[in-house]
């Protein structure tokens, strides 16, 4: 347009080129000769421009078709004669033989390598040559492909290569094609490499690339690559067979460790092979083959192999082997079923073992004590750390050791796998709760280390132990039972002044709070509060007493704990609350404190728990004119009894009881500790025997001696106060059950109040869900509780008996 607007004239092109009549035949003759030169690799003699111009001319003259057909037949003749003969010559008989004696296999291998290299070389050469021809014929391609009639001459030529070379029979008498032979040879090579020999990887890579560049059809779809359609399936089949065999062989001959390392080595080899020799696209497929044939088929057996399986690995801490094993299992199954089950069983087994030995120790109870007493030379029996406590502490320590071991395994061998973590947790829960006394044991363990007599450990060690103890808490199902035990133990610790420090107690509580929730620790915090208040109170009382009785120099010092009844789990039977007769000096102080306290808080009731108290008194023994004064710490009852002997020389048991009003049972124990126990025989008993009878007489013991000036008299059966006997345990259980009943009631009512109406099933699930944070509710119990709630008209049954449901009655 613009040209015409400027007035320029469009000059017709010079006709020189198109004018001269071209002789098709002679032009083709030129091209034909040139193409043969190209195939003979003599291209540098040729002028591209000349050839291109000739081809261009032919196409312009509408002779494209003619040119195309001629080129095609030229290529066929070249392939059939030159190229093919070069390859077929190398398909030597040794290569075709499938028999394999020692010499022939070496021969076969070299022949194979020669054959493959010749084939790939001729392919590479041929494709370069065809590439050059295609360049020359570019104009023809452009015109014909643009018209959508024909594929490019390059594609045609490669297709011809496939048909004329690869698909051709190796020789007249054999039906095997060259392609078959190539694939067979390749598979042989790979088999050689698998059995550990070195092979020519680049060569294999080259032939695979050739197969990847050739297609089944001239449309050249991605999925019809010869590599994918022909070689890869064969390769995968062969591998499948190979690994199936190898798996069986390994199982028969090797142990689990070898199996795992071999399998992981194979995986690495195969992926390396795919990268270096074959094609990357095969990698996931061949890996899948290994996973299926070698790993999945045998892994369960391997895990359970006696002697070398997972049991031995874990027992001997073979972290690397376990990691291998884990990796393998992880490949085939994200849920790790076989591994999980094996570990689960193992943990349960070891756990049962621990449980059994702990319960056994616990039930052995008194036996070891008896013989020790009979051996006088042996010194005192080991601390009155009672069997039960030993069992508990041992149990917890064993469990912690086990847990530490598996934690380490989990971290180092199982790569912190979430599934494994969950499974381990369940395993631990199962076996810990398999021990019906687990809550008591855990609490005893904590008690042991919270008491000041965990002396051979540093503070940090104790802290670590307590930490790990707390981790056990979360495995317990019956947390409410633990709570009641811990509560009781803690109360005793605080009252007996045995706790390491209140800070430690407090930090323990906060640890528990983190793990188990606020509700769990409320009561325990009450304990601590009371103790602190009492301390203040004592101080205030002392000031008060000092002011009041400045003139009278009181000989008695009072220190007391005022405890809130509801918070402290101290069981008080009626008899223990019976008021006792105190010695005059003490009674005076007691009254004075009562006056002080009730004056401060009107309307409160003070109850004295005599059996919890302790007194320090000074006692003087005279013998041979020498006076020895001891400072003795005794329980309150002892104090009351001993003070009697200030005024009396000799008293019978009955008399003592009359004078003091101490309950019989308590008094027997008191007398035993001051008159029978060998170390602390402050009183003489007539007749001398272990049992205390109402008619026994007691008197001052002038022969008393003790190696220390300050010592402590322990109440005889108080020494093992921390552990319950069977009856008490039943009691605790019953209390826990009652407590649970209330919780179930509360939970059901709360749910129903919110939902108004629910089916039986839904109500059950919700209730269990709410309660499971504290304990494992029994279905029967919930059912019973629902019954009673219906009786008490909190709920009513739904109208349809086939589909039980409940409605809430406001």
């Amino acid at each position: 347009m613009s040209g015409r607007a400027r007035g320029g004239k469009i000059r017709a092109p010079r006709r020189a080129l198109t004018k001269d009549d071209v002789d098709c035949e002679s032009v083709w003759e030129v091209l034909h000769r040139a193409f043969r030169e190209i195939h003979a690799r003599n291209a540098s003699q040729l002028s591209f421009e000349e050839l291109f111009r000739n081809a261009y001319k032919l196409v312009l003259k509408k002779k494209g078709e003619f040119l195309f057909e001629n080129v095609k037949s030229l290529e066929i003749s070249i392939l059939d004669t030159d190229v093919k003969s070069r390859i077929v010559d190398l398909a030597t008989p040794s290569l075709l033989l499938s028999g394999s004696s020692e010499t022939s296999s070496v021969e076969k291998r070299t022949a194979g390598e020669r054959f493959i290299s010749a084939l790939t070389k001729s392919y590479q050469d041929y494709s370069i040559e065809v590439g050059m021809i295609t360049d020359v014929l570019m104009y023809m391609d452009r015109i014909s492909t643009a018209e959508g009639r024909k594929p490019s001459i390059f594609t045609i030529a490669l297709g011809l290569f496939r048909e004329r070379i690869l698909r051709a029979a190796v020789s007249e008498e054999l039906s095997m094609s060259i392609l078959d032979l190539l694939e067979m040879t390749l598979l042989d090579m790979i088999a050689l490499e698998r059995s550990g020999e070195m092979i020519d990887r680049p060569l294999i890579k080259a032939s695979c690339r050739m197969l990847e560049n050739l297609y089944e059809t001239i449309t050249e779809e991605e999925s019809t690559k010869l590599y994918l359609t022909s070689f890869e399936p064969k390769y995968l089949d062969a591998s499948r067979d190979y690994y199936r065999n190898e798996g069986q062989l390994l199982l028969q001959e090797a142990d689990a460790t070898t199996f795992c390392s071999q399998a992981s080595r194979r995986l690495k080899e195969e992926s390396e092979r795919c990268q270096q020799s074959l094609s990357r696209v095969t990698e996931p497929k061949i890996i899948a083959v290994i996973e299926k044939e070698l790993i999945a088929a045998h892994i369960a057996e391997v895990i359970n192999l006696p002697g070398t399986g997972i049991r031995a690995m874990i027992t001997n801490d073979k972290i690397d082997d376990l990691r291998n094993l884990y990796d393998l299992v992880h490949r085939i199954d994200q849920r790790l079923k076989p591994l999980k089950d094996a570990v689960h069983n193992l943990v349960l087994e070891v756990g049962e073992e621990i449980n059994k030995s702990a319960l056994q120790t616990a039930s052995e109870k008194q036996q070891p004590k008896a013989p020790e007493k009979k051996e006088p030379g042996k010194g005192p029996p080991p601390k009155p750390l009672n069997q039960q406590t030993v069992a508990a502490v041992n149990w917890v320590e064993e469990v912690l050791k086990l847990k530490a071991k598996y934690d380490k395994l989990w971290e180092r061998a199982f790569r912190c796998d979430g599934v494994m973590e969950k499974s381990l947790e369940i395993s631990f829960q199962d076996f810990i709760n398999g021990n019906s006394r687990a809550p008591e044991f855990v609490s005893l363990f904590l008690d042991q280390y919270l008491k000041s007599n965990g002396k051979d450990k540093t503070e940090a060690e104790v802290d670590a132990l307590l930490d790990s103890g707390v981790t056990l808490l979360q495995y317990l199902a019956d947390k409410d039972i633990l709570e009641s035990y811990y509560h009781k133990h803690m109360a005793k610790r605080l009252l007996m002044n045995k706790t390491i420090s209140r800070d430690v107690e407090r930090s323990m509580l906060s640890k528990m709070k983190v793990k188990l929730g606020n509700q769990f620790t409320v009561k325990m915090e009450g304990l601590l509060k009371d103790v602190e208040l009492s301390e203040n109170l004592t101080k205030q009382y002392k000031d008060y007493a000092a002011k009041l009785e400045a003139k009278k120099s009181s000989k008695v010092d009072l220190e007391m704990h005022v405890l809130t009844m509801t918070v402290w789990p101290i069981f008080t039977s009626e008899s223990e609350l019976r008021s006792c007769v105190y010695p005059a000096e003490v009674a005076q102080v007691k009254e004075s404190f009562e006056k002080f306290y009730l004056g401060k808080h009107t309307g409160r009731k003070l109850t004295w728990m005599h059996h919890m108290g302790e007194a320090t008194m000074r006692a003087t023994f005279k013998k041979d004119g020498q006076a020895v004064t001891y400072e003795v710490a005794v329980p309150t009852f002892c104090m009351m009894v001993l003070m009697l002997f200030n005024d009396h020389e000799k008293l019978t048991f009955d008399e003592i009881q009359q004078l003091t009003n101490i309950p019989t049972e308590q008094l027997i124990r008191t007398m035993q500790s001051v008159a029978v126990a060998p170390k602390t025989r402050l009183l003489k008993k007539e007749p001398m025997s272990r049992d205390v009878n109402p008619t026994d007489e007691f008197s001052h013991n002038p022969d008393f001696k003790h190696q220390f000036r300050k010592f402590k008299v322990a109440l005889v059966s108080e020494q093992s106060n921390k552990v319950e006997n069977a009856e008490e345990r039943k009691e605790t259980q019953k209390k826990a059950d009652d407590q649970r009943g209330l919780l179930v009631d509360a939970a059901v009512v709360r749910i129903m109040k919110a939902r108004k109406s629910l089916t039986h099933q839904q109500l059950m699930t919700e209730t269990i869900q709410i309660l499971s944070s504290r304990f494992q509710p029994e279905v029967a119990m919930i059912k019973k509780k629902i019954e009673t709630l219906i009786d008490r008209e909190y709920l009513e049954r739904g109208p349809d008996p086939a589909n039980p449901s409940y409605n809430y009655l406001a």
Partner: protein
Amino acid sequence: MADTNKELSPFVTLVSADGFEFHVRRSAACVSGTIRRMLDVQNNFSEAQSGVCHLENLSGIVLEKVVEYFYYNEKHHQSSSVADMDIPADLCLELLMAADYLDT
């Protein structure tokens, strides 16, 4: 003239049918598919060896315009909205044929 036999010399020589020689940067000349293939080192035709292309189909005038286009293309092929090249009307048919021949 000077840069014969140097395979990777950055310049090539284009010779028109009537003997005009143009020294062109190799990268610019390769804008043409035909010339690119002609000079392909791997194919190794005589042109690739000598670095000289005799283009028997093109006259000097046309070739000059073609070379101008080569540089024009190389300079602008990435930028958009470029001013059109100035094409003399009397040459346009011959240039069309040259473009067809040279695959540009």
